[in-house]
């Protein structure tokens, strides 16, 4: 049920997030039930535009798979549609020195190689 990484919606610029229709609220990370009412939730497409809440430029690999990707801009992005939702992502198409807190960003889908799942990154809006 839980897939690797953020999932893009069918509409460009959207993401899928757990959403409770009764509360009219999304939550993150996905929980077994709505954390506000304990009811059932569904995946819903939401506008993925947001602001960088915090970030760092990672320069040392703490796992083997990261070694070829350095320096890597890791960020949490607060969604404009619901700012308490903070998504962990990578900032791409952006110099390491150009990332800053408060920067407006939008999702960009990175297709998976050889049938691997697509990853959702973010780039400056």
């Amino acid at each position, binding site marked *: 049920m*839980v*897939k*690797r*990484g*953020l999932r893009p919606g069918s509409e460009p610029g959207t993401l899928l997030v757990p959403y409770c229709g009764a509360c009219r609220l999304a939550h*993150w*990370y*996905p*929980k077994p039930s709505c954390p506000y009412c304990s009811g059932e939730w569904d995946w819903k497409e939401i506008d993925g535009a947001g602001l960088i*809440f*915090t*970030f*760092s*430029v*990672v*320069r*040392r690999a*703490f*796992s083997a798979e*990261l070694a070829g*990707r350095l320096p*890597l801009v*890791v960020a*949490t992005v607060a969604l404009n549609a619901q700012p*308490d939702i*903070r*998504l*962990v*992502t*990578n900032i791409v198409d952006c110099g*390491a020195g150009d990332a800053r*807190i*408060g920067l407006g960003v939008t999702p960009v889908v990175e297709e998976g190689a050889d049938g691997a799942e697509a*990853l959702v990154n973010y780039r400056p809006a």
Partner: protein
Amino acid sequence: MSGSGTNVGIRGIGETHYLRKSGRTLDDLQATAIRDALSDAELSPSDIDAVVTDCAIMPLSYSVDKAISQLGLLNVRHVGTFSTGLIGLNYGLDFARSLVLAGKASNVLFYFGVDWGSATGNAYSYHERFPMKLHYELPYGFYGQPVYYATYAQRYAYDYELSAAELAEGLGDIAINSRYNASLNKHAQEQSLIAMDDYLASPLIADPLRKLDCSLLTDGAGAFVVSAVDGSWAHDPVLIRGVSHAQQVIDDQDFYTQNPRHPQFPASALCMENLLRETGMSRSEIDILEIYDCFTISLVLQLESLGFCEPGDGIHVGSSGRTRVDGAMPVNTHGGLLSQGYMLGMNHLIEAVRQLRHEAGEAQVPGARTALVAGAPAREYSVALLSRAQ
């Protein structure tokens, strides 16, 4: 012996030297520390009737059955394992005190040790247990505690409008003072002094944190014994004056990215208020602070949350040598996790005992009477107040 008139304190301590690569097994290191604590307490293994350690790390590496069988602890009747590292060890002081005051145990052995200097991946891999991290953090490289705390430092600088230079100077002062304190400690892993040039030349790990902003990785172990105070102890008694623990209402998987109070630790503020109220103490009466310094920035944030620095002012705490053993606010008098060794705070408890016994030698804070031991910068927190008997 039991009853409300009884004082309970730390009777014996033991710790190994702290090294990046000890060339010894964890079993050997830990058993040595336990033996040293028993010897320091002038107790035999059969005098130990209760054992305490953490429940996240030690069960996988040096579980209670190893301590009991390797040391020949013949009379253990109570076992308590709590939380992670110092959070659990501090809370365990309250458990131990309760056992002793109830007459259920006489001598409670605490132990903790790691070989993460030799087996470095283990310091990070703990986090791989969590599905949310595996699915939503690891693919993006949000992995490894230095990355978590780097994002804390960035947000802190943004919240308080600090320039990169101001942030670096503040964090650098903390690292420099930590090394100064460690230079006076005979067990410390890193004893060479550093200056601001050395700090700024230290390689960036995850901006803005440099290698010198991060805890060491260490092989080592510590142990101590908690007992009712009587007149027979070999060393000056160090009393457990108070302990408090608190939890933030948030999933541990969520905490490092979804904390609504990011970059602060509400649990630390809560249990500090409880501790002061229950003991009737004020912050100004505390002579020494031993705080879980996994990163320079985590020390800044905890000092603010604990109320020892105003919000936004914690970044300046290390200026003019203030946190050195000879400074106005001694912090981590042993060099802490940053410079003495990454013992997840066991070493902070042992150091507090040495200081309050007035046995810290060149590093002695003159006239030290009360110490706060506190940690960790996470969703749960424990504080302990230790003091000299008189």
